[in-house]
């Protein structure tokens, strides 16, 4: 378990202090994929670097498996870092080493003998699907392949934790999906606890169990993804999760309402069609973003009601009777 207690990070420049992290309290349970989302400059990269003390927090504590890191002597901290793998947005592979030697690198640091290290590196390259490129150099690989090598390298010392700093931000959507699926697989197969830093909701959505939303150096909101996704409490979470109204097409029709689903059980129920048929009135779907967590429907939908008042009321009544949450869309 990773615990952050009252974590603060202040950068001092000549004439002012910049607060990067302000009183961060977080708890990351073993075995989960924990997402930290925020806009650029919110402090999320600093936050993840405080977990393995690449950045020394100004105040507060980092506790991993009950051990406070800030008080550890340097050589013990270095040892402990071998239990925390890390991957980066820019991959950060050693350009002058082959793929195989890159994966061997953390094992060299850990003092594993060469034969054993090579064997382990091949296993990991198989896991990430790149064993055939063992003798290639990073410059000969694509972005997605480089990140796979970086993942293999980060896992070489069999860490309990894996920190991912914007690991998919430099990749195209297809490759992003493959890398995320690989991370999910690693989490499930090897039981590695993964901390994902990102500015993209789709990353959180695809693999995370829990999420913390960070804004202006604070944790704005934290909870299970399904919870935060369906019922965002903070403004920043709403901005990140619920796309702005601008995504809904501007129409000059009737009232627009937003339907919210947080735990609509009957996922097979074609309820919009049912509503239209039962009310005998048509609605215009302007925007929809829904998905299913644990067999339960979550998400949002913006619909335009018919101009005619009587038909509109019919639909509202139907929604109330069928327990669908809605609110007026401005």
């Amino acid at each position, binding site marked *: 378990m990773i615990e952050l207690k009252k974590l603060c990070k202040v950068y001092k420049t000549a004439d002012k202090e910049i607060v990067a992290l302000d009183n961060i309290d977080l708890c990351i349970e073993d075995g989960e994929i924990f997402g930290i989302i925020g806009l650029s400059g919110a402090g999320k990269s600093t936050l993840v670097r405080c977990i393995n003390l690449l950045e020394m927090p100004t105040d507060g504590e980092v506790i991993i498996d009950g051990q406070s890191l800030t008080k550890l002597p340097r050589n013990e901290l270095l040892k402990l870092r071998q239990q925390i793998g890390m991957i980066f947005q820019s991959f*950060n592979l050693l350009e*002058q080493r082959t793929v195989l030697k890159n994966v061997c690198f953390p094992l060299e*640091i*850990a003092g594993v003998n060469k034969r054993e290290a090579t064997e382990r590196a091949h296993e990991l390259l198989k896991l990430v699907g790149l064993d055939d490129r063992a003798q290639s*150099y990073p*410059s000969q690989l694509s972005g997605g392949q480089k990140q796979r090598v970086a993942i293999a390298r980060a896992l070489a010392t069999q860490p309990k934790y894996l920190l991912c700093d914007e690991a998919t931000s430099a990749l195209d959507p297809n490759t992003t999906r493959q890398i995320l699926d690989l991370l999910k697989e690693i989490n499930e197969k090897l039981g590695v606890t993964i901390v994902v830093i990102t500015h993209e909701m789709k990353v959180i959505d695809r693999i995370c169990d829990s999420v913390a939303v960070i804004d202006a150096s604070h944790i704005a909101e934290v909870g299970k993804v399904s919870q935060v996704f369906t019922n965002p409490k903070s403004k920043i979470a709403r901005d990140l999760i619920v796309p702005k109204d601008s995504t809904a097409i501007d129409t000059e029709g009737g009232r627009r309402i937003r339907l919210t689903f947080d735990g609509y059980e009957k996922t097979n129920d074609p309820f919009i069609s049912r509503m239209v048929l039962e009310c005998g009135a048509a609605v215009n779907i302007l925007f929809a973003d829904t998905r299913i967590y644990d067999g339960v429907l979550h998400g949002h939908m913006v619909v335009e009601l018919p101009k005619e008042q009587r038909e509109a009321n019919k639909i509202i009544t139907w929604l109330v009777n069928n327990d669908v949450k809605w609110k007026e869309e401005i």
Partner: protein
Amino acid sequence: MLSEMFYKLWNNNLIQLGVWETIYMTFISSAFAYIIGLPLGVILNITDKKGICPRPGVNSVLGLVVNFFRSIPFIILMVAMLPVAKLVVGTQLGNKAVIVMLIIAAAPYVARMCESSLNEVNAGVIEAAQSMGANNLEIIFKVLIPEAKPALITGASISIVTILGYSAMAATLGGTGLGQIAIIYGHQRSNDDITWICVFLTVIIVQIIQVIGSYIARKTDKRINH
């Protein structure tokens, strides 16, 4: 066409000896300049405020010393360092003394050259090594130097050519080699052909160093697709 003096020198193998002495002095001095300069470059790099072991005090003092030696023209530095040469090799004369002065002049230059090559190493790669628990020594020997190798080699060929230039100037203080032949037999005895032959031979040596340096740098750099 050529002067009598040229044939005299050539037949006595003096020009051939000059070429050899120039090469020999350059490479001996370069080797020692690197033995001193490379560690200095590493220290300058790692003690920088963005380095892996920031020590602003050490960095600025060392930087100042390096800049001090680099700002003195070689010909003046040579005269000033005569006592040091005497201290180290027991004489102020001849090639031994010249080599000492070449090393003193070249080491700060090499230090800056190495520092700038090491600065080119991607900070992210160093951070990655730190995240794996590498200590500073491991980062220097397993990340910084190997990753900067192609730049270090390119830098070395530039440094060696500079040292070769210095070695010719050393003729004014009794150093031998092509510089001495050009000054004594070419300039002082007004044999322009000998001066030009020395120029020509120097150009050839520089070219060879440059070509070999670039070749090795290209061969070692794994960032290019082969």
